[in-house]
């Protein structure tokens, strides 16, 4: 370690016994106002049973290597990330298969830092994908580009979906690569 600052973590030694005045006379009690605070660690862990509800067929599709979207049956307004009901008509949407349609990068970034869950993945490329004939965008990981060469030229680039061989039933079951 040279002059670089060490990353701090919450962890510390377990201490048995906390300094405290031997006698609780008025001076000692008044001194308590000048104490530094006591901080303890609290663990917190939960397992949720999360339902994809009406969006579930999308995950079934991805686990079978098909990319689904939804559209309003009358207007044709299509959502790359499915919605059970159209936000303009309120009508129930229908499923469409967009796997083989032309897709391009609409926007992207390279994440060098992140939430705790995704730190092991850094650096990774996040991208919003634009699909031909689809009105909204799809958030995904973009693989196969050198993150050190990030450039606005990546926007507009044609990409195609790839699917995990073993589905995790997450939106990351699909990712995109340059064509």
């Amino acid at each position, binding site marked *: 370690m040279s002059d670089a600052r060490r990353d701090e973590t919450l962890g510390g030694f377990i201490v048995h016994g906390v300094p405290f005045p031997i006698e609780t006379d008025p001076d000692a009690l008044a001194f308590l106002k000048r104490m530094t605070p006591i901080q303890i660690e609290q663990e917190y862990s939960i397992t949720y049973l999360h339902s994809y509800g009406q969006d579930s067929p999308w995950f079934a599709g991805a686990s079978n290597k098909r990319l689904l979207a939804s559209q309003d049956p009358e207007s044709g307004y299509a959502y790359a990330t499915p919605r059970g009901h159209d936000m303009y008509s309120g009508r129930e949407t229908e499923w469409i298969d967009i796997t083989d349609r032309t897709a391009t990068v609409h926007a992207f*970034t390279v994440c060098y830092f992140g939430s705790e869950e995704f730190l092991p993945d850094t650096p990774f490329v996040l991208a919003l994908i634009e699909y031909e004939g689809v009105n*909204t*965008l799809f958030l995904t990981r973009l693989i196969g580009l050198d993150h050190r060469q990030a450039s606005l030229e990546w926007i507009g680039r044609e990409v195609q979906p790839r699917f995990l061989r073993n589905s995790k039933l997450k939106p990351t079951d699909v990712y995109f690569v340059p064509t």
Partner: protein
Amino acid sequence: MRPVYALSGGVSKFAKARPDKTFQAIVKEAYDYAIADLGLDFPTFTKAVDGSVASYFSDHFSRQLMAGIMAQDYLGLVPKPSHRVEGGGATGGLCFQEAWKSIASGHMDVCVAYGFETMSHVETWKGNEFIALASDVSWDYPVGGFYSGYYAMMVTRHMKEYGTTVEQMAAVSVKNHLNAYHNPYAQKRNRYTIDDVRNSPMVAWPLTRLDICVMSDGAAAVIFASEEGIERLAAAGADITQPLVKVTGIGRGTDAMRMGDRPHVDYESFISDYATEQERDSDDTRAYYRELWERGTRYPGVHSFRAGRTAGNMAYAQAGISDPLAELDFVELHDAYTSSEVQTYEDLGLCRYGEGGPFAASGKAFMPGIDYGLDLTDDPVCPVNPSGGLIACGHPVGATGLMQGVFAVWQLQNTIGKHFGDDTLQVADARRGAIHSHAGTGTYVSVSILEKEGN
């Protein structure tokens, strides 16, 4: 609705960590300051106030449900009415407006809005995770939930559409950090150069660490009153600062939680539904926008915040503002990212869509009398984030929008020097200002207009 006045405010020192006090006691720092600035003691104000609104974003950070009532209890405000407001990053701005409504509706004559967040209880990467849970946990979070990443995607699109540069964004960072140098409440008070910003560690391309606000522990409070409430406080011995500061307009907007779900509307829809009054009335601006649309721009997409434009237009209409750049003397806006300050210039009509980058580097949003070490082409017109904004003050979420309210009240009272111990950041003859609070990727946005009475 009745006239509503913002009489006083208080802000705790925003800091990376405040383990010396619990959140209730940090709130009390801000609350006590606001009471003292009215010249009242604690029991007298407690008797005079009708109720409160509490503002905090995340139950996760404190690992405490119903934290609002714990603050209410600690402040000695029970059994008076109160409720908690939550709307992501806009929580403080929404709280400000809920307190306004309590007065405007006649439900209360004196109401205090207080807000807080203690984000230091978890490590930064866990904090990022908590914040990212404010994105769709079925679709967006699992892909790599990280707000800096979301904002970086938005700005790559903004750069592609409009030619916005990283140096223009860095000018925002230089401005806000140096403004904060004169603000004792701010967490980061530094002089930086454009190179410093660009050479700081990359977080989410193209945003570096100095393009991004920091997590913070802090609290803020604002006291509101009706005319009857002012009479009550004065009768109790309050020294009410004159001229009064009136809240003359509030506006709010929303947008889809998943930014990818936002529409890409055509030119006609943009002009009829979203253009500012000034934009609609200008042949030149309509021609400018026609050309943008012919080049492929669609609105709002992911490069603009429709919620911010909606909130701004609503607040401006109520306050009678048609040319925001000329009619506002300052703006405290939600600069969680330098890029979002650039985007928000456009949403608030301080410049046209597509011109936020050049506007950022022009000097129009800078404070007069401060040497930023930049070659600015224009004189200051409407200082934006004279306090230093979120980037330099910090962003203890539930407190942030109220902090903006406090600083706006002080600007309009001409008391920045008194509260900061330095009048460098006092906007000369400030008569009208705006505060802007923003959540998620632009999901809830509030804009409130404050004016010096007799303006």
